[in-house]
């Protein structure tokens, strides 16, 4: 049987620069389609999952994501999330989701005070999300980070609540999957690389899985299952609905 394609929307803010990479990554999954959603628009054109891509929205001239968060499209994204829709923010997209209050915490300047582009190892902390269900628990991914402000921080009470609710999705680790000195590229609290909301349908991560979907490129293919998890979830939801 050939199902209708899973429809993704990739938001384009002025200064987004990984929007094309996200669309390209999705194009490597048969049975998916991806369209751009312009920041000045106010509806999501019927997409089944939304990605806020990486880049430098509004140049990051103010706090990262702080202006993008007020784009007309963001109200539609917030409504979509409230109704259970899947929203993934990558890097600048993660920062925007945090600014929009869809995810807890904040992302501050790297402790090294420099932009860092580097392969990191990520340990999958939970497979109980629509974004990581295709992975094995504890699986270690090798994916590139590239950012100036990826240092995740959150107040102790919220962190405790997030831990209790299994909202820490990805942590920086060494190749064996252990939290270790030097494995964390930006000083993030508790080595946190990715988190989800309590409802588990909104997810943000600093590393760039969209650059890790093709084994013959330098980025490798360890990011594929993130997108696969989302596709599987949308298909399952559609099946249940029908």
């Amino acid at each position, binding site marked *: 049987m050939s199902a209708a394609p899973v429809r993704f929307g990739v938001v384009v803010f*002025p*200064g987004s*620069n*990984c929007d*094309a*990479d996200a669309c*390209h*990554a999705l194009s490597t999954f048969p049975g998916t389609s991806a369209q751009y959603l312009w920041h*000045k628009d106010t509806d999501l054109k019927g997409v089944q999952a939304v990605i806020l891509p990486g*880049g*430098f929205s*509004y*140049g*990051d*001239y103010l706090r990262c994501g702080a202006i993008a968060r007020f784009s007309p499209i963001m109200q539609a994204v917030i409504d979509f999330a409230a109704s259970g829709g899947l929203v993934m923010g990558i890097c600048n997209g993660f920062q925007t989701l945090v600014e929009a209050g869809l995810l807890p915490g904040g992302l501050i300047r790297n402790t090294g005070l*420099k*932009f*860092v*582009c*580097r*392969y*990191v*190892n990520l340990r999958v902390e939970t497979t109980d999300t629509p974004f990581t269900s295709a992975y094995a628990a504890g699986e*270690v*991914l*090798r994916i*590139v980070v*590239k950012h100036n402000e990826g240092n995740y921080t959150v107040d102790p009470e919220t962190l405790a609540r997030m831990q209790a609710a299994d909202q820490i999705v990805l942590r920086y680790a*060494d*190749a064996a999957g252990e939290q270790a000195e030097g*494995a964390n*590229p930006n000083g993030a609290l508790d080595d946190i690389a990715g988190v989800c909301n309590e409802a588990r349908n909104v997810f943000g991560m600093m590393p*760039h899985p*969209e*650059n890790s979907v*093709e*084994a*013959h*490129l*330098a*980025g*490798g293919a*360890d990011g594929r299952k993130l997108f696969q998890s989302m596709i599987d979830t949308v298909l399952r939801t559609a099946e249940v609905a029908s």
Partner: protein
Amino acid sequence: MSRRATVEAAVKLGLTADEYAHICAIQGGEPTYVELAIYSLMWSEHCSYKHSRPVLGRFPTSGPRILQGPGENAGIIDVGDGWAVAMKVESHNHPSAVEPFQGAATGVGGIVRDIFTMGARPCVSMDSLRFGELTEPRQRFLLDGVVGGIAHYGNCLGIPTIGGEIYFEPSYEGNCLVNAMSAGMIRTDNIVRAIASGIGNHVVLIGSKTGRDGIGGASVLASQEFDETLEEKRPSVQVGDPFTEKKLIEACLELIHRHLVVSMQDLGAAGLTSSSSEMSSKGHVGLDIHADRVPLREADMEPWEIMISESQERMLAIVTAEQIADVREVCERWDLDCTVIGAVTDSKMLRIWWHGERVANIPARRLADESPVIRTPSVKPGYIVDEPVAVDDTGYPRPSDLGAALTQLLAAPNIASKRWAWEQYDYIVQANTVQIPGSDAAVLRIKDSQRGIAFSNDCNGRHCYLDPYRGAKAAVAEAARNLACAGALPVAVTDCLNFGNPEKGEIYWQFEQAVEGIAQACEALDTPVVSGNVSFYNESFGQAIYPTPMIGMLGVYDDVSVHIDDAFKDEGDVIVLLGAEAGWMDGSEYQKVAYGKVEGRVPDVDLQLEVELQHKLRAAIEARLLKSAHDCAEGGLAVALAECCIAGGSTGGAQFADPEAPRSGRHGRWLGADVDLGSAAAVAGAAGRPDLALFGEAPTRVVVSVAPELLGPLDEALGGLPRRVLGRVTGANLRCTMEGKELFTVAVGELHSAYESLPQRLA
């Protein structure tokens, strides 16, 4: 207009009295001040190439793949399947010496505009940098600022910066070099050129507002030596806004791909002046520019300031009346200013208007064509010698510990890993990167195609100082060799020729010699020069830099999946040295690091052997016979071997999740090697010294590794090419012997620590 355009004013703007007289002859009397300001910029060294033009004609510039040679914003090369690559390198040395962060940032911005102006989507940047020694705090400040500026601008644009090169020599102390190279992909049927046409068409300014930043950048900064007034020149440096440039890229590419513009030109050096005069002279038409319609940041700017401002992120487009509404719509969508500031006329005059009054009226062709040409009588400098140094035990005492000499070389800033710099660059955005920085070349795939492209840049300034002809020739050969090591076919060159003051005979001699060396190598390797830039006046207090003709080269693949890197891959693989066996002390990194000397005469590249080596190396890679290939450059054979060992573990910061799994780019673990160099006399000539065999330098040498079972087919593929089996990939140590006698054994972990020690020097 209160300002008079006297000869005194002309001299103050950088013109000579003779040039002023010529201007008066063209204008039929004393020019207006706006006219004088325009001439002063267009006839500056930076814009007119007055000292270099007579020599640059020596370059080969055409070939079956070349769609656009020098003379446009960028050169364009056909790479197959309807795709072409636009490429160019440009210097931003002087601004970076004054204000490193903004100087380097706007250098990136400028070169990227040259690429998308032609309709190409920028797909890669590489930067070639030179500083004084890192022991000087100011040099560390410059390095930090320049790398930070490149990262700031390039990362925001979403263009991968896939490495480049960085060298440190005392001669660059007062004049750091920042050569920014960029390339873009374009469909061959979608090329836009900077030629104005269509009488009555609109002249449209798109992008940032115009301010007083960068007034006189081309004449004040780029066409004079530095002295104690360096700090006062800071206002001549522009300030970059990468966010606006990113929007400009998207808007301009949409305008071009929808055929909404007749032609386009970016505003670089000399701003509106150079862009308008170049567009009109190339198109044999006139342009009327209403300077009072230019959107300003500062309301009280005078017309001459508006005409020569180098405010960044601005583009000039020629648009028909029918299409202006569509152009406005695109610009509005991207929140960019879009202003009609003039029109194309049949007057063949560049006319500038200010609230209805004509303030300049210049024949466009004469402004472009009659700029002065100066050929300084050249003088061979006294320091040049014709013979190699005598490597005797008094001048060059033999080292007691060759292993220690190797780690010392690996830790030398010129050889040590530049990871500290390239980890600040986004080298993976756009999802085309096949080979990340740190190997011989940057490699990218072309989407929806088997094809790929590769880039390298090279120049050993020390070699060019000792012999500019041989050094420049070797830079071309090495750039091509680096591409061949990755399996790519070199097809074109862009060059950035950095020299001292061309009014001096000795500098001019260096320039002429270097151009001759480049020309001969490009002819032999079939790599025409398609674009480039000359940067003169790299002198401080009369002290010139090493002549530094930086070569940027493009290579192509029919099938990019054949590409290999420099890392040893598997235990038991056989290590083979391809090319001539030789080791020269002259101009080597070893000579500088171990003996503190720079002297002698560097070896001459045997171009016939070079072509044969590269051809056979590439054929072997295409036949998938080799697992790794690495050029022997600074530090000689021993450093090349060490780099092949270390590269296996260089995963870009973290270890692989699965150290056994071979991945694209980098392997998962360190591998050692056991090699025998044979006889010292054979390798290092009469001197017979093992240290020369290890660390001596010579062109046309490549270290490869091959699976033992493929040694036979490799032998066949190499035919008569000189080569020698050195040993095997094995263990976790690099062990070198000579005729069976041990020279040293060093753990690869120790080599790695030395190689990655650059950050400690920056602390």
